């Protein structure tokens, strides 16, 4: 019968209309600014720099300014200047650090390649997305102070991944320590006071506190 297809279609729309009042399968929208969808754990937006300690973010950055991410970044949005001197990182090891670390988020495409290539687990993907501004240049250019976020924040947004990363870092640190110990034992005469570079003072809880390098 002519028109039966039309009537059948109207039946479907009626079903959806009625269903939208009681069936969550048929009402899938949210009133955005008031209601927010839960972000999946893997969700990624612009990168941030992981620091070990929230109170001293600049002193405990994991980044050593190796510039691998700067080279690998496809749209070239990262800009790094590394330091000429060294200072102790969170574990007390003397390290080069980034004097300047900028990410131009107007260029960044959130592809995560910087995270993948970083050998130091120093750069991770953030989850903030409400970052619209009126200024095209300055506000979208994030410097290292804006980029640094503590490890606790990383645990908050990517719990599974962060736990894996922490376990891996701990294992690496232990292995390095044992290696250093093994290297140190055959010649006990050398260095009664451990030099800050070779056998690093262990306690990671007391990171850069008092760790100012000798000038």
């Amino acid at each position, binding site marked *: 019968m002519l028109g039966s297809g039309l009537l059948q279609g109207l039946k479907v729309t009626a079903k959806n209309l009625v269903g939208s009042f009681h069936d969550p399968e048929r009402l899938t929208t949210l009133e955005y600014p008031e209601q927010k969808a839960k972000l999946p754990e893997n969700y990624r937006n612009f990168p941030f720099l992981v620091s070990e300690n929230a109170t*001293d*973010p*600049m*002193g405990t950055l994991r980044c050593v300014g190796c510039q691998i991410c700067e080279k690998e970044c496809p749209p*070239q*949005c990262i*800009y790094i*200047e590394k*330091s*000429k*001197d060294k*200072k102790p990182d969170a574990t007390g090891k003397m390290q080069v*650090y980034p*004097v*300047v670390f*900028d990410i*131009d988020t107007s*260029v960044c495409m959130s592809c995560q390649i910087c995270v993948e290539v970083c050998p130091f687990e120093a750069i991770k993907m953030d989850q903030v997305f409400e970052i619209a501004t009126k200024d095209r*240049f*300055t506000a979208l*250019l994030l*410097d290292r102070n804006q980029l640094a976020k503590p490890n606790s924040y990383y645990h908050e947004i990517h719990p599974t991944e962060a736990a894996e990363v922490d376990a891996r870092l701990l294992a690496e640190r232990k292995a390095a320590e044992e290696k250093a110990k093994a290297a140190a034992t055959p010649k006990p005469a050398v260095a009664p006071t451990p030099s800050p570079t070779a056998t690093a003072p262990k306690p990671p809880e007391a990171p*850069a*506190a*008092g*760790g*100012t390098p000798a000038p």
Partner: protein
Amino acid sequence: MMETLEQVRDRLLARFPGGEVTLIANPGPAAQHSLALGLNQAAAMALFLRDDPDLRLDYCSNVTGVDWPEKEIVESTKVTVPDPAGGPAKVVEQKTKRIQPGYLEVVYHLYSMALKHGPVIVRLRTGNRHDQVTVPSFTPVWRSCEFQEREVFDLFGVKFSDHPDLRRILMWDEFTAHPMRKDYVEPDDYEWEPTPHGTVLEKAKAHYPATAVAAPTAAVGAAHHTPAAAAVTTAAPVVRSDTGLETRATPAPKEGTP
């Protein structure tokens, strides 16, 4: 099963006496070898490839260009030079430089939908990169070449004789260069950005020479300037920084430590 590329080449040579067909080996693991066709009989050969009952390459999937600019090749050969004093002959390494001529290449990937085999890769090579750039069009043989050959014409500058509608396709009609060539120079259309580096920094210096110096101490703290603002502040004594352009403040080395 499809016959080998050698057999295809031999059949083409037998069918077209005086034609040129060269087998180009592909050294990589993919081992997709190809046939370079001489330009004078290429269109007839393409028709043969399409209509031959054993090949029936009725589907031309991909058409693309490749630019091979002129390359200087240094070859070293060992030559024995007899000693004029009568001693033992010396072996001398002689280096010869030769210029490998550049050319443009059009690559066609042919498949058969009827017999479900392929690819047979066909290459056409131009005489050089500037005046002998005409190759026969395969659009009369396979319609799928129409837009793709236009693209090769647009981006590489290969001219296709017998193409029904050879116009630029992606660039606008008034554009004169061919952007996919290796020696293409981008137009100088630098737009200011806060963190130029690499090649962009060179452009930035050319466009904003006044800001290509570090900020005077008065400007320290204001991290980034627009070019106009920075130009004003350069009246004070300035220090050239490593990076050249930046007007950013260089932090003290002890920053971040208590």
